[in-house]
């Protein structure tokens, strides 16, 4: 218990140091935008993304045949994680006309190819699993 209290106290100390850094090295109008971004991140995850994933789970469990659900869940985790990581290059907000060495890949075309491949893999795996389940049943 003492070790845990020490750990918690150390954590609180580090976090307060971070807060002090933020408040002393940025102006109040900058604090406001940081706070806005902090809040927006939580809303984007806890409300938007969570609702989307819960929706996908509900749809999947109602619409997909049982043998398709595992491949679809695996695909959603891998494809979803990859897509979130790729958002900045897909949107391309950092593209600059004077720097052709930055963001110099065909990101959007690649994302469509990746997405189509994932759908195809789920369909093929699901189909094979269904057939095997029936064959063995």
């Amino acid at each position: 218990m003492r070790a845990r209290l020490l750990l918690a106290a150390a954590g609180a100390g580090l976090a307060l140091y971070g807060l002090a850094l933020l408040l002393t090295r940025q102006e109040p109008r900058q604090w406001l935008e940081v706070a806005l971004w902090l809040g927006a991140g939580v809303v984007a995850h806890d409300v938007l993304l969570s609702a989307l994933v819960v929706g996908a789970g509900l749809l999947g469990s109602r619409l997909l045949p049982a043998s398709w659900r595992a491949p679809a869940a695996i695909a959603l985790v891998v494809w979803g994680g990859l897509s979130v990581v790729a958002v900045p290059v897909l949107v391309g907000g950092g593209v600059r006309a004077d720097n052709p060495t930055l963001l110099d890949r065909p990101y959007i075309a690649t994302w469509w190819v990746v997405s189509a491949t994932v759908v195809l893999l789920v369909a093929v795996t699901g189909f094979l699993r269904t057939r095997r389940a029936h064959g063995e049943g």
Partner: protein
Amino acid sequence: MVTSRLRLPTPDSFTSRLRSPAVAARVGLWLGLCFATCFVTGLVSHYAQQPTHPIPFPTSPSWGYRLTQGLHVTTGVAAIPLLLVKLWSVLPRLFEAPPLGDPRRLLLTALERGSIAVLVAASVFQLATGLLNAAQWYPWTTFSFRTTHYALAWIAIGALLVHVAVKLPLIRDVLARDIDDTAHDRPGAREAGALSRRALVRTTFAAAGVAVLATAGGTVPWLRRVSVFATRTGEGPGGVPINKSATAAGVEESATSPDWRLEVVVGGTVAAVLSLDDLRAMPQHTVDLPIACVEGWSAQGTWSGVRLVDLLRSAGARAGDVVVTSLQRAGAFRRTTLPANFAADARTLVALDLAGEPLALDHGFPCRLIAPDRPGVLQTKWLARLEVDG
């Protein structure tokens, strides 16, 4: 009927056994390791960018900063799928009713949930701003990325330590049991998910691996072909990409002017004024050194030019900290300090050539600084002046 449909969910609305401490602890362990690596490598990078180093930053190995900053960005990317699944696995707890009848428990619950709110907000902020910075996209208008990312790193790691302290007995017990053990499950978690817990955890690790492979080519050359979502192909003049172009720095005219000269100032007086031909007439040396940017990309280059120590010695200067000024008219890194141990290193060059060709304008023509084990932003381009104490 409609009102009952619109009611907020309760923890029991989530029936999948996958949303469990067994999954959260296993994914969380690796997420914690990623955060710890990000934090330590971030501190290294922040220290390397300080103008003065109370403890000298080492010049060897030359690829040290390339490694730490590559790890920083790579573990940050790996943390994104891990964080998403971690939060997914504990989502039902967001809807737990507060213990309103018991003031003491209410206070403790409020404190714990407050610390979780700070942890989630800081984690999402750090991963999102880091990812955006790597793609050089700055959609915010007022705050400084570097200052804020640094301050929030302390808040995130502090909140993480508090979270681990609160959960430690649960984490230890859950990890000691089989992954399918139900002792710590929510009472409402009664249905099997689409996958087994083991498969979900493995899939999450695979997702982190795929995200890394798809982006790490910017710093791991042999991954370039598979890193389809890397911010760069790695192409560029002399095989080295560009971070800031001459146009963006506003130096196109001054850098190509026939009147360009490199000033060496010793003890406040101009000790030497060198043209490009003067520099070419001095003994030339060739070194293989990486450019490693804070944004996480890096590339090895073969640089040729004059050794900084030779240049300073010829101007009659003693070794010491060197203040390096660029032709750039603005920017936080227009004027930087090269610490004495970097200035004294024989590999530190005032480079004129890259890969056997004169420097491209975007790489810092007529000459740039290249030193071992330094953040790319401090490898000053378009040199105008070098200053040392007498």
